[in-house]
C-alpha cells in the first residue's frame, strides 16, 4: 500500500514536470507566439500541391499509355489539357516566386523557418 502510494506520487510529479517542461526550459522567451504559415505561404503551398498533382497526373497518363491501359485516342484527348495545366501551375509558382523576391527586397520576411 505504502509503496503503491509512493509510486503514484512519483508518477504524478513526473507528469507535472513533463507538462511544465516548455515553461521550465524557456522561462522568459523572446517570443511566445505560435509560428504559423502566413497567407502568402499558404497560397504558395496550395500552388505547390497543384503543381505536384498535375505533374503526377501527367506522369501516370504517360505510363498508362505506354502500358496500353490508355488508348491512343484517350491519350490524345487528355494529354493536351494536362500539359497546359502543368504549364499553368508552374507559371503561377514562378509569379509567386517573383512576388516573394519583391517582398525580400522590401526587407519583409519570406518564410524560412528554423525549428
Amino acid at each position, binding site marked *: *500500500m505504502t*509503496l*503503491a*502510494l509512493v*509510486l*503514484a506520487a512519483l*508518477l*504524478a510529479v*513526473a*507528469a507535472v514536470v*513533463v*507538462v*511544465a*517542461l*516548455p*515553461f521550465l526550459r*524557456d522561462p522568459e*522567451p523572446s*517570443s*511566445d*507566439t*505560435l*509560428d*504559423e*504559415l502566413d497567407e502568402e*505561404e*499558404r497560397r*504558395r*503551398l*496550395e500552388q*505547390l*500541391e*497543384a503543381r*505536384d*498533382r498535375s505533374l*503526377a*497526373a501527367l506522369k*501516370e*497518363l504517360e*505510363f*498508362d499509355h*505506354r*502500358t*496500353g*491501359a*490508355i*488508348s491512343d*485516342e*484517350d491519350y490524345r*484527348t*487528355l494529354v493536351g*489539357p494536362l500539359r497546359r495545366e502543368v504549364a499553368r501551375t508552374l507559371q503561377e509558382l514562378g509569379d509567386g516566386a517573383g512576388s516573394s523576391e519583391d517582398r525580400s527586397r522590401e526587407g519583409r520576411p*519570406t*518564410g*524560412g*523557418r*528554423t*525549428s
Partner: protein
Amino acid sequence: MPELGRAALVVTLGLCLYALIGGVVAARLGRRRLALSARNALVAAFGSTVVASAVLFAALYRSDFSFTYVARTTSEALPTPYKLSAFWGGQEGSLLLWLLVLTGFGAAAVLLNRRWTRDLVVWVVPVFGAVATFFAFLLVVVATPFATQAAPPDGAGMTPSLQNPYMLAHPPLLYLGYVGLTVPFAFAMGALLSGRTDERWLVATRRWTLVAWTALGVGQLLGAHWAYEEVGWGGYYAWDPVENAALMPWLAATAFLHSVMIQEKRGMLRIWNVSLVILAFALSLFGTFLTRSGVVNSIHSFTQSSIGPWFLAFIALTVAVSLAVLFWRLPLLRSPTRLESVVSREAAFLYNNLLLLALCLAVFWGVVYPLLSEAVRGEAVVLGRSYYDFFLRIFGLPLLLLMGIGPLIAWRRASVRSLLTTFRAPTAAALLAGVVLLLLGAGSSIPGLVAYTFSVFVATTIAMEFVRGTRARKALGAASWPAAFSSLVSRNRRRYGGYVVHASIVLLAIGIAGSSAFDSVAEGRLARGDSLQIGGYTLVYRSLDERLAANATEIRATLEVTRDGRDLGMLQAGKNAYTIEEQVSNEVGIRSDWRTGEDLFVIAEQINPDASVQFRVFVKPLVNLIWLAGLVFLLGSAITLWPDAREQRRLVSRAAEIGLPASR
C-alpha cells in the same frame, strides 16, 4: 497494487483534460509554450496509461483475485496466455486497452508530424485530448478495472469459447482498428479547426488509416476463423451485431481510402472525405458501444449497463460537434475542379463509394432496427440472414465488378471505343468462365455464378495490369523481368499494393460464394460402426473417448473418413466440459483439402449415454480461399504501407519550398 492503477488513471485523466483545455487555449491565443505543454501532456498520458495497464497485467498474471476484474474473468487453472488475454476479455479491461492504444497512437502521430504540420498539430492535440478524456473519465468514474474485494479462493473463469488462440489476437487487432481511426479523425478536425485544409492532413494520416483499416480487416478474418473453428455451428459469419460492429467502420474506411485518391489526384471530394472520416470514427465508437454496452442482446441490458448511456451521449456529441465544424469550414473545402465525365476513373471511385456506403448503411439499419423496434413496440424484431444476404448481393456484386472496371479507366474521361477495347479480354475471360461453370452445374445458385464470373473478370484485369506494367518497365530499361516487376511495384506501391488487396477480395468472394452457395449438409444419429455419406465422402463412426485436460473434460468421437474408396485418415469431433465455468463447448472436426480448398466439417451435436452420437456434417467447397485471402490482404497492405522514398523526397522538397522544416 490497485492503488497505483487507480492513481495512474487519475493522472491520465488530468493529463488528457489538460491536453484538451490547454490545447484549445494555446491554439486560440497562439501561445507556443502552452501548445508544447499540451502536447507533452498527451505524451505523458500514454506513459501513465502504460503504468495502469502494467498493474492490471501483473494482477492477471499473478491471479490476484482481490481485483474484482481478475476474479470475474479468470481462474487459477486458466493457462497463462488466456489469463493475460482477459485484459481485453471484460468491459473495464477493454476500455483500458482503448485508452492505452489511443494515447499511444495520439502521442506517436503528433510527435511524428510535429514539424511540417505544426500549425495543424496545435489543434490535433486537443481533439485527441477530448477523446482520451472521455475514456479516462469512464475508467476513473464509471467502470474501473481496479475495484477490489476480499479475495475468493478461485476466480469465475473465462467463457470456454474465448479460450482459443485466435482470441489472443482477434480483439486487440479490432481495437487497433477502432482506435486507429481516431488519428485521421483528429487530423481532419485539426485541419478544419486551424483552417489549414491543404493536403498535409491527408498525407500525415494516410498510413495510420491504412494500419487501422488493415488491423480491422485482419481482425475480422481472425474472428471469422475463430467462429468457424470454435463456435461450431458450421459457419464463419453470422451477421451478429458484434461482427457488424467491426464491419461498418471498415466499410466506411474502405470508402475513404478510395475517395482520398480522388482528392490527391484531382483535388475533388474534400467535403466528402472529411465526412467519411467523421463517419468512420463515429462508427468505430458505435462499434465499441455495441460490443461493450450490453445493448446487443436486449435494450433492457443497455439500461442496466453502466457505460451505455455515457457512450451514446459521447457519440451524439462527437457527431454534432464534428458536423458543426464541417459546416463552419465548408467555404474552405470547395473543390477547384469538377467531375468531367461519368465515364472516368474518379466517377468509378465515386460509384464504389456510394455502394460501400449503401452497404454500410444497410448493415447499420440491420443492427439498430431490433433496438428501435424494441424501444417503440416493446418487441425486438431481428433482421435475419436473408436481409443481409440480399443487400450483400445487390451492393456487393456491383462493387466486385467495379474493382475490375475502375483501375482500367482513364482519369478525367474515357471514350466508349477505348473502353470496348480495354475490356475485351477480361469480358471474354469472364463469359468463358461463366459458361464453363454453368456446364459444370454452378447454375444452382445464380448469385454464386455471378460472383464467380465477376471474380474472373477482376482477376483478369489485375493480371493484365501487372503484365502490361512489367512489360513497360522492361521496355524502359529494366535489366531483367524480375527487376522490371520489382521496379513496377516499388515505383507505385499504393497502386500495385492496392491491386494485391483487390486480388484478396476476389479470393474472398470466391471463398464465400463457394462455401455458402454450393455447400452441402448431412445429419444422422450414428452408433459405433454406422456410416454417413456426403459429397463423395464416407464417414464411419468408430469410437468415443474421454480424457481429462488442465481445465476441462474432453469427449471425442472418432470417425474414419474415406473418399471414393481412398483412406483419408481419422477425424475427431466432440465436446469439452469446463468444470469451473460449468459450461460445455462444441469441438468440431475439420479436414481441409489444400488442393481444392474444400473442408469436411463435422459437429458432434449430441453425445448420448448409449455412446451413439448425433452428427451434423458439412462439405464446404473453396472455404480455405477465405483464409488465404487474409494472407494476400496482409501482403497487399504491407506493400502499400511500405515507405516510398520518392514520395518522401517530393514532400520534403515541397515543405522546404515554403520554409517548413524538411523533416516531418
